[in-house]
């Protein structure tokens, strides 16, 4: 019987205060003394918040962050292998050298190509992961696994796990905010930032422009302001009276509190969404004044403002729907040079400005910047076997992502792909390791942050995951 009541007390607290900034952490700490098995360990947290720049469609690593001189030499030769590469369209053309020139950057001498001239200036702040691997060379499963550790619909994303694990630092903003590309949401839509089986307050909240930046933040139909205020006072009054009659039940107390927090959100979201108070210089540094960079620039600046005010996880997408012509993502099947010039041109300056801004404000030391892609692109062209076409297919065997900021070795690269950049050969980093590392930087043991769902204590890292300790400062 004791067992039942102990379990229940924890559930009760969790249930009653969910969404009030109370979190897994609170619930688990509560449980700690009783069950004797603390769920969240006492790792030192280096990161307090993160901003995730999530590239849709697959960025070519051999043209950006993974310099392969051997590939240059082998341009026009055939890929020497007996295996059939697991790629999307199945056309294996000849090897193709990089389309962008690589240079050693900064004091670290990290090799970064001219695809990202602005980001390259921050080479000494970056931690490049050159041996990423994915389970899937298909967009949607690839995007799902990069975000949630599973290739399917229905699993919580990294931002949701962090929200669940740590909550927000503020009560007046959501813990997890999503900023979509102006060209549209990624194909998977809200599934990409879903809280899935985690409590719904951990899902990503989409922040848009306009006078309704978050859906239903203000009355969706015309309503008199004084009537609105009076109604809310009335609601509060009758809810208080109801609770006095029935006793302090957690769910009733929770509801009353939720209306107070809703009012705070109504105050703070428009303030954070309004960038007009930022100086002209700052706005220009983000590229808001130029057409090509205006969208990402605005979102990067918004991202910084959200982080500053206590949002835990901000997610920015670079790229919209995957299919269609012309491409609105990094999916350069037809022509890497053209496509990546365009896509990188949209985000290079804004992302560099974000790094600069965070650093200047002293935030980079406890903010994690994540720059990811679904997968890389093949070192061989996507063309007939005797040709070097201008496009590249999906490559799940090896690609590059980078992180920057809190708790990381700056100006550092980990892992290697083979000499042509096809497969990760040294310290391969599957997504589970990437996620384990992110959680670690937040002071969370990835094996301990779990949520029971249909038969298993689910985690972001499924049943895998090793922290990439090589990159920890």
């Amino acid at each position, binding site marked *: 019987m004791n067992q039942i009541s102990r379990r229940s007390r924890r559930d009760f607290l969790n249930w009653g205060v969910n969404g009030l900034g109370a979190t897994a952490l609170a619930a688990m700490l509560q449980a700690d003394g009783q069950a004797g098995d603390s769920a969240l360990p006492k790792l030192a947290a280096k990161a307090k918040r993160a901003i995730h720049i999530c590239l849709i469609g697959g960025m070519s690593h051999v043209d950006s962050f993974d310099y392969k001189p051997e590939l240059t030499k082998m341009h026009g030769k055939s890929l020497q292998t007996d295996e059939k590469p697991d790629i999307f369209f199945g056309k294996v053309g000849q090897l193709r050298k990089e389309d962008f020139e690589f240079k050693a950057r900064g004091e670290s001498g990290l090799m970064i190509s001219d695809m990202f001239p602005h980001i390259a200036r921050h080479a000494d702040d970056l931690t490049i992961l050159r041996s990423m691997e994915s389970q899937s060379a298909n967009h949607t499963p690839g995007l799902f696994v990069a975000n949630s550790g599973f290739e399917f619909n229905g699993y919580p994303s990294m931002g949701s796990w962090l929200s669940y694990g740590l909550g927000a630092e503020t009560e007046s903003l959501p813990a997890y905010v999503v900023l979509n590309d102006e060209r549209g949401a990624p194909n998977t839509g809200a599934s990409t930032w879903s809280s899935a089986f985690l409590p719904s307050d951990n899902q990503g909240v989409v922040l848009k422009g306009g006078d309704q930046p978050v859906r239903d933040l203000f009355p969706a139909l015309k309503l008199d302001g004084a*009537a609105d205020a009076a109604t809310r006072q009335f609601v509060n009054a009758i809810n208080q009276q109801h609770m006095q009659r029935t006793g302090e039940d957690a769910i009733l107390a929770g509801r009353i509190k939720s209306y107070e*927090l809703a009012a*705070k959100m109504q105050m703070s979201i428009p303030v954070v969404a309004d960038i007009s108070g930022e100086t002209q210089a700052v706005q220009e540094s983000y590229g808001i004044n130029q057409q090509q960079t205006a969208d990402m620039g605005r979102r990067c600046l918004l991202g910084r403002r959200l982080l500053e005010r206590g949002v835990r996880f901000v997610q920015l997408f670079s790229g919209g729907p995957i299919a269609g012509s012309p491409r609105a993502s990094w999916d350069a099947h037809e022509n890497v040079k053209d496509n990546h010039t365009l896509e990188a041109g949209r985000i290079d300056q804004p992302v560099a400005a974000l790094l600069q801004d965070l650093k200047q404000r002293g935030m980079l030391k406890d903010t994690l910047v994540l720059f990811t892609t679904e997968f890389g692109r093949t070192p061989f062209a996507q063309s007939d076997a005797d040709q070097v076409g201008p496009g590249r297919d999906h490559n799940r065997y090896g690609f590059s992502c980078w992180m920057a900021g809190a708790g990381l070795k700056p100006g550092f690269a980990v892992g290697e792909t083979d000499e042509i950049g096809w497969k990760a050969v040294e310290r391969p980093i599957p997504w589970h390791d990437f996620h384990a590392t992110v959680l670690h930087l937040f002071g969370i043991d990835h094996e301990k942050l779990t949520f029971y769902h249909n038969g298993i204590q689910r985690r972001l890292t499924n049943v895998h995951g090793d922290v990439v300790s090589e990159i920890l400062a």
Partner: protein
Amino acid sequence: MIDCRIQLLHDVAQAARLSAQTSRLCYAVAMLLCVHTMVPAQEVDFDKAVAPIFISHCLECHGAGELKGGLNLSQVESAMKGGENGQVFVPGDAEGSLIWQRVMANEMPPKHPLKDKHKAVLKQWLAGGAKWGTSPIDPFSTTTDTRAGRDWWALQPLREVLLPKVHSDPPGNEIDAFLLRNQLNARLVPSAPASPRAQIRRLYFDLTGLPPTPEQAAAFVADPSDVAYRKVVEELLASDHYGERWARHWLDVVRYGESDGFERNAPRRNAWPYRDWVIHAFNNDMPYDEFVRMQLFGDQLKGGPDGAAATGFWVAGVHNTVVGGSDRMKKLARQDEIEEVLATVGQTFLGLTVNCARCHDHKFDPITQREFYQMASTISGLGYGERVEQSPGDQAILTSMTTALKQLNERLSTINQQAREAIIAARKTGDAEVPEPPAAFARWEFNDDLKDSVGELHGKAVGNAKLENGALMVDGNSFVETSALTKNVTEKTLEAWVQLENLDQRGGGAITIETKNGVVFDSIVFGEREPGRWMAGSNGFARTESFNAEAETHAAERPVHVAQVYQADGTIIGYRDGVAYGQSIRKADLQPYKAGETEFIFGLRHKPLGGGRTLTARIHRAAFYDRALTPAEVAASSGDSANYVPEKQIVEWLPQEQKSERNRLVAEIAEKSTARDAQAAKANQTIYTLTAGQGATTNVLLRGDPDNVGDVVTPGAVASVSGVQADFALPADAPEPDRRRKLMEWITHSDNPLFSRVMANRIWHYHFGTGIVDSPNDFGFNGGRPSHPELLEWLAGMFQADGYRIKDLHRLIVTSRTYRQAGYLPVDWEKSSSENDPREVDAGNRLLWRMTPRRLEAEAIRDAMLSVAGKLNSEMGGPAFEDVSIVSNNGTTYYEPIDVDGPQFFRRTVYRLNPRGQRSALLDTFDCPDPASAAPRRNVTTTPLQALSLLNNSFVLRMATYFAERVEREAGADVSAQVVRAWQLALCRDPSTDELRLSTELVQQHGLAALCRGLFNSSEFVVVE
């Protein structure tokens, strides 16, 4: 009658031999204690004490699958031989044994060292001579502290249990007896009965998902007797709303969604027959075993629309329609699909997480990896798709309706024909006017070039397309394409004059409007689905249906004029030689085309050029109109304008008597053809359902990797479930229906103890908010332990003995004293000296000392608002209403919530289109689950976004306005009367003096709608005691 039955079961139970005090849980605990206390004994029993340690802590790396360091501890010979580092056991010498050294140093097992008590057992065993027991170790033999064995409580046969002997006043039913015993043991007393108002509101929401009307509530408050209560229970169980409410629960469990998920996420507009079938099954109290048999095997058991609808179960989940080009991707996607469906089958019906055994034996429950693939073999014919199901009875009615309609049409045609002939004769003498042909947006004469003679949509030949004798010649390997359309097009008309090379050809297009890649298109096609007939071709037959017209007979000898008019509402009307071609069709919404992304092609159904899509013909002329032409315009354009007589002209021509008859006929035809169309849909129902293929010979896939193929397996299931035969005695290549039948029989077998336990627990879960097992989809080691093991046994046994009648379970539960008790302790409550404070000893209310107040589910909140506002549209069944905009962008479908208003949107939420991924603002924040995965237990959160939704969502605001209008209608102009009525409607009670004062102020200053919005936001509205 019910009471008699329960009495009977009671007697049986009293005769049972098992002690009432022993529960499986206690048993499991006792076993563990047993292990512990055996340590000091002289000889350690290997099987009971040591093997469990090996199983839990060693064999994952040193057993079956993997042999790290070359060490295999799963059997005596290999264990004694040791690994790469030599021998690990020195019998009789613990200190000298390598295993002990590594364990003592906490090096093994890595990360999670053994607990001291286990170390002690190991040492004792080594010292005592390391005598091995069963070899190889049977990892499933017994339950340990880290996993379940075959002796796991849930896998055992149903036990008959004695009803507890407890005295209570007033007496309760059997359920109360079980609960009271545990309450007394914890020194708790159940709460007093809830107020009649709370009871009636609870009962209505629980059984129907809707609130009672003020009158219904008042009637019960006036007479809250048991008799009256039972009468209400019976009324609610007989209500159609009951099925709508409880089907919604079931749909959560089977993750029923109405789009594919993954990249494309296409809508499934024909999935709803499954939803309706579930609703009807609940309403008809279909016995649960039949309910399950139909879902698993209804296509074979019953067939027809019912069978197809029921087996929609198999395809209720996500389906990846973009699996990539490589073989590996395809195989992996298929395995993922099989795992996802097996997970649903195992968890839904049996609470078994079989899916966890795809890559290795289940880590927590006695399910082997081989058994996973044996089950996979039983469902290897799984296929997703649509089937058209004909219902013989409905077909017969359809035929007679069609005949009747034909006769009416003939009569009308005779009248028309006579008038037409007379009018044409009169035209020749100049006594009747001839209509003008309409102006086209683009027109290709094909006389001297491929140019558009009106605009800029000039053509370009591809392949051998050439001009000859004033016509475009297409030869089956050529076509003409135009430049891009410069404006957005919604409604439209396509038109062509075509002479076919022969009438046997199939599938070519005369004129096509398409997106540049040919993915989306509309086309005048010949002989595509129906030989010898013109059709409106479209991508994936999205808008294509038979015109039910006569076969073409002339087009090989002379050019015929064909036109297709695409109207704004999606209706497509075909014409041949200026007159209607069969019946108009409407299968889907109108497909819009975008400027810059659209082109026309001639001679090809859609790009790319390929077999089965080309036409062999002379196209004399073609035209495109950016609007829907009228019949008169088509006729005029057909070049037969002299012989075309518009309807208006006919009517005017007729003498009065014939005119009246004609009017009667037209009205009758319109009415009967609507009825006929409805009947046609009923007689030929398109259903998204299981499209079973052949079963595949199935292998174990090592580590779940499709490239790592192991042994072939035969169809079967999980052997550790007691009472049922897990080997299906079928060959590996058995026909698909045989496999699925065996699976169905195994699941629904009356000796399968999980079958009734899991469902009885599910029903309990929905009534009380928490199951006796709090993980309704998981009765395994990772799931919850039953809070009342004997009650669960008793309920499951009762359920089975009663013929799996779900409504009887409801009756039993909702009439219990436990169910009817209060939700809140009185504010002045004080415990007596002999009892505990329940808030301290059982805050989670597992012992049900009160009825936990519950926030309504998202659907119930929406439905309750509709009901209170007086706007609920009770129409049942049929296609879903769509309160999202559905936009297709390059193959991917996006769903955006939109603000809608009107009765078709005021149906119950269970009828709302339920796509995956993109959702409704209101439902979402109130924890309505995304049907991407099973939701056997919904989260219940309280969040600021929820408050914002309930305050500001357009639906809530609209309902507040309607609610205010209703109050005004019912209460008149007096503000006090309005306030009282509003409170009654929303909360089934009158306001207190203070509430009346606050409400009146609000209404006086800001109007009635403000009060109505406020009441929707009250805790009392959304939290039911």
